[in-house]
């Protein structure tokens, strides 16, 4: 037989004691628009794009579980670096859009990016009144780069180094 609860005093009074105890403690609520908590460093708020690192390889767009990344790019011929060399072809990013109305915030795109062009930032205040405006283009995604936090140190016993 398990130990059943045996109240020492009438339960209603005991419960009132707990509410009274809680009443004396400071409130834990945060009055959001007036005061705000800083989100944790790892919080997945919004994705920032470092445009110069992107080669429009489409890995992120293909790995996205709901395909909310739209990439268009073209190749351009540039003059060779050395005399007599072959002309270089560089990838120019025409369009890089993330539709945050569809995004599931899984972070697969950030992980698969082989050129470190995508970063998580903990910013979260970008709600809109129109759903179409949640489609962030490469300029807006580039602006988020300012908010990318420094990688934090890891717990004791961790072997791997912090990402980036």
């Amino acid at each position, binding site marked *: 037989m*398990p130990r059943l*609860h045996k109240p020492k005093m009438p339960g209603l009074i005991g*419960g009132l004691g707990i509410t009274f105890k809680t009443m004396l403690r400071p409130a834990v609520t945060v009055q959001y628009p007036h005061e705000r908590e800083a989100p944790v460093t790892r919080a997945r708020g919004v994705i920032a794009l470092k445009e110069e690192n992107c080669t429009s390889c489409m890995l992120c767009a293909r790995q996205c579980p709901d395909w909310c990344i739209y990439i268009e790019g073209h190749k351009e011929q540039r003059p060779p670096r050395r005399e007599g060399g072959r002309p270089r072809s560089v990838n120019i990013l025409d369009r890089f859009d993330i539709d945050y109305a569809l995004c599931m915030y899984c972070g697969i795109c950030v992980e698969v990016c082989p050129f470190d062009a995508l970063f998580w930032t903990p910013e979260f205040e970008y709600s809109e009144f129109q759903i179409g405006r949640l489609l962030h283009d490469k300029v807006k995604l580039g602006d988020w780069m300012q908010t990318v936090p420094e990688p934090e140190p890891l717990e004791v016993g961790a072997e791997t180094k912090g990402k980036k």
Partner: protein
Amino acid sequence: MSTTDAAPPSSFQVDRAAMRHLADAQVNVELDTGDMILNLGPQHPATHGTLRLVVRLDGERVISADPVIGYMHRGYEKLTEFRTYPQITTLINRIDWLSSFANEVPFMTAAEQLMGIEAPPRATYIRTVLTELSRIATFLLFLGEMGLQVGALTPAFYGFRDREYVLNLIEAATGGRFHPNFNRIGGLKDDLPWGWIAECRSTMKIVLDACDDFEDLVLGNEIFRARTRGIGIIPAATGAPYGVSGSNLRASGVDWDLRRDARPYLAYPDLDFQVWTHPDGDSYSRYWVRLQETRESARIVLQCLDGIPAGPIMAKVPRIIKVPAGETWVETENPLGQMGYYVISKGATGPFRVKIRSASFSNVSILPWLLRGVYVPDVITILASLYFILGDIDR
């Protein structure tokens, strides 16, 4: 003139055996009252989502209850067939959204079994800690919400307040409050941040204190006892054939916990913990068992934190994950009960077929049996004490 002898006007089955033992059946015969069909839901505050109950009432008594599910069906079993293994983690987070991390573990274990790799011990321990944290978060919400359903508003606020501390921990480690998406095949995405273990230890003290508070505030309350004692009794012999699992079955006295009894998974074989059961099987005992399990989970977390080994958090896995052909079944003890995935792989980047066994789906299948003959206010109490998540039912 007798209504009990008349044929039921619709397709609902009237259980005459249940009717006969109703205390006021005779009164109804004399007053010649008709039955009433009441739709509880799909939008009803007491159903935690879009569960619809078609309840056939005789006065205040329920003659029959029919759960209508599927309003939130998202077709995850089919969606998984068109996703790769890393993408599926994102989806299965959303099956039982209150304990997302616990959903990931069995699927990742299944994929790892098929690939023949094993997560390093450090990853296994961190997985165990996060699974238990999600269990605590789920149960703290239940401990508060159950009070709400019997008319006590105070514990609901306490439950949400204390759960927030646990969710903050999960967010600090994984980056997501609700959808961690932290498991990878062969380990974890990242190691814990600096200072997380110390913070977790202090939060577990808050959780243990909160459990004491709930015990005095809710379990000790005479009104709560009157509303839940002897209400919604599931006998062990009935619950098990219906597929009821987890705390609901342990509250009926069945000593069955997959953390201890299933094929060993995570770090549970190394840990010392107790499986709580209660012989009664009523709403009260379901609350009691979950309260004890919250405490036990906090103790498991503290044990794990002491024993986290140093080392890597990822095994060696190829960059493009292709799972060899084969099939496997992995079941784990989730906060709501037995959760299992039957994964069939044909050697591609994604599974060929995934069967998801979610706990709530089987737990609500007992509702037509359980709600027969109870009063309408007790329907709400029983629904709350069974504690299902609609996403877990409808998938």
